[in-house]
Structure formats: C-alpha cells, structure tokens
C-alpha cells in the first residue's frame, strides 16, 4: 500500500462548517505529515480574520494562499475569498478569479477536482455542513481518481443539505462526526 500513502486532505464546507473546523483543528496531531487544504464559502471582506481565527485552534501553521505558493506537508492552507483555488502538477497553488461555480467563488468542486487530478489515490476529500450542492461533483472526481471521500454525518451538521447531497449521489467511503474525522486524519500515514 506504500504507493497510495495519503499526501493531502482537502476539506470543504459552507454554512455551519466553521464550527466543525473549530472543533476539528485542536484535535489534529500537530506533527501531521500531510497537507491540509480548506475551502469555505465566505464573504469577500478585506482583512478577513478567518485564517487568524483558525490558527488559534492548532499549532499546525495556517496560511491563506497567495498565488503560486508552494504546497508543503505539515501545513494547513486556506482558500482566499473571491478566488478559486487550484493545484498545479508541480505542487504550486494557482488562484483563478473566473466565473462563480455553484454560485460560489471559491467553489469546493473546483478545488476538489483540481486536487483529484494532481493527487489521484493519495487524496482524502471531506465535505462538511452547508446549504448548497457544491462539493458533490468534486468528491465524485476524487473517488474516481482513487481517493477516499468522507461526508460529515448529516445529523451533526448545522445544515445537512450539502453532506446529504454527497451521500446520495456519490459512492461515499465514510460518514463521520468531527471526532471521527480527527481520529481518521491523525491515523493517516
């Protein structure tokens, strides 16, 4: 199984998902050997405090992505407001300010599909709470590329629609609450 060692976890969510991250981050192993990429639907506001807020919850460095930043292990990256976040073959981030997808920029599908393309079977995709169907096509792309896909258990989601869509329409591997997600991510090698 060595060749399928997981290299990255991409987490996406919309309304109600910030609470999950605030519980999940403190439970993560600080010496995690993976790249964690977080994409949230968010308002485009100057000086958004989101990266700061999240960085208080973990000792893993949290960085809001700037164009062509390197994708490194042991880091948490946050998609900036108003840009789609993509990953290049040479493991640099690219930002893209093209049309909204699923009424959203950043769109979860865009990042999930791009990560699936680059990471193939070495990727885990997690979809959290939200009121829109963004993320389902992206999880499906991760699955088709050989990765593992996880949805937040709808009964623990503040807004269940988003994970429910994924559970209905994809061949989901796991349905987890935030504690189970943390244990799963900490167990990845």
């Amino acid at each position, binding site marked *: 199984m060595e060749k399928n060692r997981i290299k990255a976890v991409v987490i996406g969510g919309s309304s109600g998902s910030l609470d999950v991250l605030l519980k999940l981050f403190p439970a993560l192993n600080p010496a995690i050997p993976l790249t964690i990429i977080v994409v949230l639907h968010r308002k485009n506001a*100057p000086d958004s405090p989101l990266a700061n807020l999240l960085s208080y919850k973990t000792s893993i460095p949290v960085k809001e*992505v*700037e*164009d*062509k930043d390197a994708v490194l292990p042991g880091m948490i990256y946050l998609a*900036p407001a108003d*840009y789609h976040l*993509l*990953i*290049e*073959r040479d493991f*640099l981030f*690219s*930002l*893209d*300010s*093209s*049309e909204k997808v699923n009424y959203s920029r950043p769109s979860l599908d*865009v990042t999930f*599909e*791009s990560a699936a*393309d*680059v990471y193939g079977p070495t990727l885990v995709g997690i979809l959290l709470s939200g009121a829109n*169907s963004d993320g*389902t*096509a992206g999880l*499906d*792309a991760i699955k*088709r590329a050989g990765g593992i896909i996880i949805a937040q258990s709808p009964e623990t989601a503040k807004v269940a629609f988003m994970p429910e*869509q994924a559970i209905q*329409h994809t061949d989901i591997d796991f349905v987890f609450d935030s504690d189970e997600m943390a244990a799963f991510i900490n167990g990845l090698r």
Partner: protein
Amino acid sequence: MFNKLLTIEDEEVDLLLNDLFERYGYDFTNYSRASLKRRIVRLCSLDKFPSFAELRYRVNSDPGYLKHFVEELTVNVTEMFRDPQFYKALRTEVISTLAAKPFIRIWHAGCSTGEEVYSMAILLKEANLLHKSLIYATDLNPTVLEKARKGFFPLPHMKQYSENYIASGGIHDFSSYYTAHYGQVKFDESLGEKMIFSTHNLVSDRSFNEFDLILCRNVLIYFDKDLQDRVLSLLDESLGQLGYLALGTKETLKFSSIQTRYKQLEKEKIWRKIG
C-alpha cells in the same frame, strides 16, 4: 443529479496548446496549467462537445470557433472598484503623488471589459487630474476591448459597483456618472475621452511606452512562474523612475527578478519603483 465533468488528460491539453501555437501563433504554453485545463473542460461542457477529440477537430477546422475558443480560454471576470481598499490606497497614496506631474500616463494591462479602467477615470476626475491624464487600456482579446471602448455595462451590477465606489472613498452620487438605457448603463463620455484601447499580448508583445502607473490586476495568476517573471520584466521596462506598479490582491513581486528595485506601499499590492 450533478453533472459529471469530462476528463481530459494532460497530454491532450499539450496537443491542443501545440495546435494553437504552431498553426495560429497563440502561445498559451506558459499559462497556469490547472486553470487552463479547467477552462478547456468548461468550454467542452458549454459548447456541448461529447469528447476532447471533437473539440480539437473544431478548433483546427473552424476559424470562427477558434476565435471564440481563444477568447473564452482567457478569463474576463472583472468589476468596478474591485477591492475597494485597493482603490482607497490609489486615491490617497498614488494619485495625490502623481498630481504634481505635468502629464500622467497610465497603462492598464489586461483590462478585459474595462470596468477598472472607468473606475480609474473616475478617480482621476475626482482628483481633477483627468484632463492631463492618458490611460492606455490593453487586452489580448479584441472582443472585450470593443465592449470596453463602448462603455456600456449591465445595469444590475450598478448596486454592487456603487457600494464598492463608496467603500473606496467616493463621495459623489455614483449614478451621476452614467445614464441607464434598457438594462445597460452608458458611462459619461468625458470619462472615455482620455482612454486609448488597443490589443496587446503580454506574452508576445513588447513595451510600447513609459508610464507613471501600471495596473495589471489578476492577470499574472493565470501564468506560470517563468512567464510571470517575464511579464514583470516587461512591466518594469515600461515604468518610469518612481512610478507605481499595482497587482491583484493575491499577486506579488516577491521572489521575482525585479523585486529589489521596488518598495511596497503599506499592505496594498502597490509597489513603487525606487531603483
């Protein structure tokens, strides 16, 4: 049910880019590949091609489609006073410094449909500098330039633009700058008088003048690092001493070969040429 996306292999993207370059001279080889690939998949889906092979055949056999394809491959999403804090910094720190010059030359590189060019003209007008300014607005896509030249924009966007304008420090009634006709607005002719629109391809064309301020916002994100560096050198060559270079909010001069000659203003993505 969601729409499953067509899968396109990297080798197929290479083939298409090679066609565009060899047959038509369009060089997209140093564009950000992830973004470009997504644009191609999107076009396959929008234009309902069942497979990549059919898209490629059409690009190579139908000149009308080729034009559409090239224009759609590049991103033309823009807005007026995009990132109002950036425009606030332009008003307070840049425009005021340029005021002393007898003549102000500005280049807006990659201006798309021109929303940011009209925003700049409004700033200059409010600073009482428009009469002695000239804004060169360029893009590689002639169709978007034609739109920009006409100065018509969709009426439904004006609410957002008006909010952006106010957040950028605008104190006038934004609607005084335009008149509405049938769902479109036409901006005041006097704003357009100091604009020169022209095609210019940052990948293949050269520097054509020396400027006091160059804006190139959310253009470099579509290029790989090598091309970013080449384009930054082109912009550097085109900027006079103590001139200003403005980039998009997530773009940077850091790690580029021209970095040492520039000093960043506060926290906005505006640099001054000091070396």
